């Protein structure tokens, strides 16, 4: 029992957030900059809200109206008591009551209207915010995604934005009306007795001090909580995606342990965020009570001295109470506001990530592409100290089929990545039709290329939709034609629902090889000038491969194509073979030429033959 009572106070405070002066290094979360951060975050949220300024004004009007009506109600009741109940009064009693009914109805109406309008505004705002965040994700450079867990990014689009959403729904109006009431009350108090008002306000500096103490802590805490939530989300997403491995290796316990660790972290940051932000209304209450005491005490002494009347004290106590309520409301809203700001900050963090270096100003739209490609002294490395590609130069004529050969990690896929401009060369240049690809709009460049990437990806949707991804305006007939060329039709038709069979995310339920067939169909449909097949047939059996070979050959006819493959059959039909090793272009030439060169390729070829001879 006692232990359970003490337990809550023994939760350790998130370590790196303790004390403002502890963190000596770059991360100086000085309160001042924090506040600036907030105001800029708030301003950005406001810029979204401001899009519906008209409606927002209407809401504000309704808030003013309903506040006025809310005051009018009690006043009318006072009138009723004075004029009708006590005095017996005239026959207009019925009219008076009707009037009261009208006031009440109007009050309900205005508060209803302000609510539903605000909801529309806030949900639209949230929608826009979410939409912009998502759109921005598609503008970010590919390396951004390599560094982050998917679930962590997902958390920003869902959890963080939901946090903002719930605040906008409920708190915005509350804050409006609280501020309004506050101003009204203070005005009346000032009119009644400036001296006592001043006394009431003696607690205000204390209030400010307390709030500062609290927000200094809760700001980082809420941020921390959202961060921890993101990490947890990332962990969940990752372990669920890898669930098959966890099962097969029976690592459930380890997965759970990792989960517990992150779960505990979020529990702690959440605990302290909620606890400390929970101090706010308590502090407000206490300070209010204190102001009561001050009014009663000092007012009492003043009254004894005859400086003021008892009546004024009583009225003042009432008003002090009035003064409290909106302040209390505000203080309560402060919690949700803080956590919303933390959410919004994380959203804007992503939005502030620099976009995939935007196209150069002079970048052009391509009208057409012949498919002549040249690499001129191209070097590139993912991290600076270790070049993945080193001084690569070659030329490709339109319509040529190029095979890229070399040991794993030689830089084949990287070369393709440069061509598609996921990355830009560190030095040297890549040209298409004689034009530096950096001077071509990315989208325009890519729209002339079709890729079958190493890891095939299928969307949740029908098979038809998945193939049509290659060219959106393709007719059903064209989709099926492409599937036939890729030799995917037999297995599609064997499935219940055929082309309309719905596939799951990642296409679970069909085999890897079948996924590759669909990916090839997709590329066939795209009808590109440049075709890139990166291990496109690695999971397809050789018999099927021969069947689609014909389709692929037809596809490659008249197009420039790059093929990465390990199977010699695939490679041998290439016009030219580029042999890569350790990021260098070792040899190039046709199959026969390379064999004659007696170099690395011959070695490679021989080793494969030797194996066959077994």
């Amino acid at each position, binding site marked *: 029992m006692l232990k359970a009572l003490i337990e809550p106070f023994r939760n350790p405070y998130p370590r790196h957030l303790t004390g403002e002066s502890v963190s000596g290094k770059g991360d100086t979360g000085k309160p001042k900059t924090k506040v600036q951060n907030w105001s800029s975050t708030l301003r950005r949220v406001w810029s979204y809200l401001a899009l519906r300024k008209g409606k927002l004004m209407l809401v504000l009007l309704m808030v003013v109206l309903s506040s006025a009506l809310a005051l009018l109600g009690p006043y009318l009741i006072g009138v009723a008591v004075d004029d009708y109940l006590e005095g017996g009064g005239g026959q207009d009693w019925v009219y008076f009551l009707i009037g009261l009914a009208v006031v009440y109805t109007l009050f309900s109406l205005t508060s209803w209207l302000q609510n539903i309008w605000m909801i529309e505004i806030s949900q639209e705002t949230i929608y826009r915010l979410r939409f912009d965040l998502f759109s921005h994700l*598609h503008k970010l450079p590919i390396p951004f995604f390599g560094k982050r867990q998917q679930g962590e990014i997902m958390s920003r689009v869902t959890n963080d934005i939901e946090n903002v959403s719930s605040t906008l729904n409920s708190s915005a109006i509350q804050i409006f009306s609280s501020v309004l009431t506050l101003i009204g009350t203070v005005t009346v108090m000032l009119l009644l007795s400036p001296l006592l008002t001043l006394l009431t306000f003696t607690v205000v500096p204390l209030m400010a001090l307390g709030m500062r103490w609290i927000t200094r802590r809760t700001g980082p805490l809420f941020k921390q909580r959202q961060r921890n939530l993101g990490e947890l989300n990332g962990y969940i997403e990752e372990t669920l995606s890898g669930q098959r491995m966890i099962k097969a290796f029976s690592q459930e316990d380890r997965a759970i342990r990792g989960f517990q660790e992150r779960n505990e972290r979020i529990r702690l940051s*959440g605990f302290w965020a909620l606890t400390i932000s929970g101090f706010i209304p*308590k502090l407000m209450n206490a300070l209010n009570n204190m102001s*009561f005491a001050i009014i009663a005490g000092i007012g009492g002494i003043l009254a004894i001295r005859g400086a003021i009347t*008892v009546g004024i004290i009583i009225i003042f106590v009432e008003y002090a109470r009035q003064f409290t309520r909106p302040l209390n409301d505000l203080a309560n809203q402060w919690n949700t506001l803080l956590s919303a700001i933390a959410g919004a900050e994380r959203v804007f963090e992503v939005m502030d990530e620099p976009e995939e270096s935007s196209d150069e100003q002079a970048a052009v739209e391509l009208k057409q592409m012949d498919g002549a490609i040249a690499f001129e002294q191209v070097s590139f490395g993912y991290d600076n100290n270790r070049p993945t590609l080193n001084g690569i130069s070659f030329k490709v004529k339109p319509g040529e089929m190029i095979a890229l050969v070399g040991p*794993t990690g030689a830089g084949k896929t990287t070369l393709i990545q440069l061509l598609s401009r996921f990355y830009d060369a560190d030095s040297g240049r890549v040209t298409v039709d004689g034009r530096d690809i950096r001077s071509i709009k990315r989208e325009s460049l890519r729209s002339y290329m079709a890729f079958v990437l190493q890891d095939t990806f299928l969307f*949740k949707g029908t098979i038809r939709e998945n193939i049509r991804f290659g060219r959106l305006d393709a007719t059903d007939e064209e989709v099926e034609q492409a599937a036939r060329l890729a030799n995917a039709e037999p297995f599609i038709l064997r499935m219940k629902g055929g082309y309309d069979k719905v596939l799951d995310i990642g296409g679970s339920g069909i085999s890897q090889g079948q996924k590759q067939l669909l990916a090839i169909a997709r590329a066939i449909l795209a009808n590109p000038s440049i075709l890139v097949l990166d291990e496109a047939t*690695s999971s397809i059996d050789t018999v099927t491969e021969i069947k689609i070979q014909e389709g692929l050959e037809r596809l490659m006819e008249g197009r420039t194509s790059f093929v990465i493959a390990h199977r010699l059959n695939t490679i041998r039909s290439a016009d030219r073979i580029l042999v890569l090793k350790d990021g260098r272009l070792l040899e190039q030439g046709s199959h026969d030429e390379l064999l004659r060169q007696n170099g690395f390729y011959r070695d490679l070829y021989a080793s494969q033959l030797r194996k066959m001879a077994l």
Partner: protein
Amino acid sequence: MLKMLSFLYKYRIAAVAALLMMLIELTVEITQPYFIAKIIDDGIRQDDISVVWLWGGVLTVSTALAFACGIASSFFAAHASLGLSYDLREKLYRKVQSFSYSVFNRFAAPSLITRLTADVNQVQDLVFMSLRFMTRVPLVVIGSILMALIVNVKLGLLLVLTVPPLFVFVVWMTRKAIRMFHLVQQRLDNVNGVIQENLIGIRLIRVFVRMANEIGRFGATSGKLMQDSVRVLRLTESTMPFIFLLMNAGIIAVLWFGRQDISTGSATVGEVVAVVNYSLRTIGALSVLSWLVVVYSRSSASAERVQEVLAAEDGMEAAAAGQSAQNACPIEGAVEFDKVSFEYETSELAVLSDISFQTYPGERIAIIGATGSGKSSLIQLIPRLYEPREGAVRVDGTDVRQLNPFALRGAIGYVPQEITLFSGTVRENIAWGREDATMEEVMEAARQAQIHETIGSLSDGYHTMLGQRGVNLSGGQKQRLMIARALIRRPAILILDDSTSALDVRTEAALLEELKMLSCTTFIITQKISSTSSADLILLLDEGRLIAQGKHEELMQTSELYRRIYQSQYGEVAAHA
């Protein structure tokens, strides 16, 4: 929702303490006017300054007490609600981990993610809010109504009369809102799903320049979320105006009848004023109600979604926990399929039909066959990721369903076709196969998997951080890393599902050579005859049927399809050589 409350039991002391503290705070608040009255009546009016000091002091002390209680309640409430969400989340995650793989596949991953985060948070919010604020509402409402009845029964009854319609309305509203929030959470799942898809497929989307489409799709999905959110919130936000209307009608009635009663003398003006005052106070307290309706119905919907997962049957996993490690003897690796037929839950097509074969410890088995012929499905039955519909899979002569899955899987090293790496260092990813592995063992496994040298050339060697899907490695490197991860388990049965497809010929040859040294039973799914030719047993699958088995030479003799595959790889090449 009630089920969720059972999670609060563990924190009942903190929860009760929080409520108690709130009560003390409330009491102080209520008694304050009394102290002030004392100051005025006994102090100021009597010109007795010592009384003013006395009661002023009491006021100060009680204020301090209220503050202390308030702060403490903050701790207790936060502790109880976060403890609850922690437990709930963990229970949920444990449950998900306990699902058999096929049960797991019934839930969409994005939906599980929302349930584990957003939904649990909703429940937590409700508990926190309840502990902090909810006590106030019923206390004030019941107190006010009672007081009104005491003051004047007839007029008080008018106030009571407003309660049933109010109650009916709130219940109706809450029910409806719960259903609608359920839908909203589903929409959130969908939004989550689209994001996940886009993140996984981001490269493909870029190269096919489909950003605009995907953004459009996201717009549509989150548009639906917006619409449904607006719909349900519009409903719940109507609560307060409606309650006000109802209660205000009550006040008008009180005034109307009150005036009549005053004229007949059965009520006094003071009584009418008092009842009106109590009504006003009730309204004030009820204004919180609409907000509570939102929080309550939303978290009820969330609680149901959490409960759905908790209530799902675990599949075989739970049963397995019971039979514990009765089969303590180490698995040797003899695998037998006895008339096995299998199909996935989601598709009605038989994936495997009537498969029978027998292998002995230490043998190398190559599985070959066309794309979609059932190779991957077959080997997934061995670690019991799925169970056969008919027939039995036996390891060391025992049906795998009788074996403890942890013991069984502990003896298996499985390398799936799809790249599955986890964010962490290279070393962590290899040691993921066996937690207690030493650095030497990690390096040994890496050496066997032909990846040691490559790792050495990485910027931080074994401590290089990998992204979630191992983005900074080439396809072949990832495959070898996964093989190392399987090898470090020193498995009795090693399963390679086309795990060498991205390897160049030399590396692959070196790897296979290395694998020959191992004493484990090895299943290799492959497309290459070169890998099958030295196998002890070749299984040739075609459309889910085992159409031939035997050694290379036998199959060359007996199987037309095998010869065709051979031709497809050797025919021309052989001629060239």
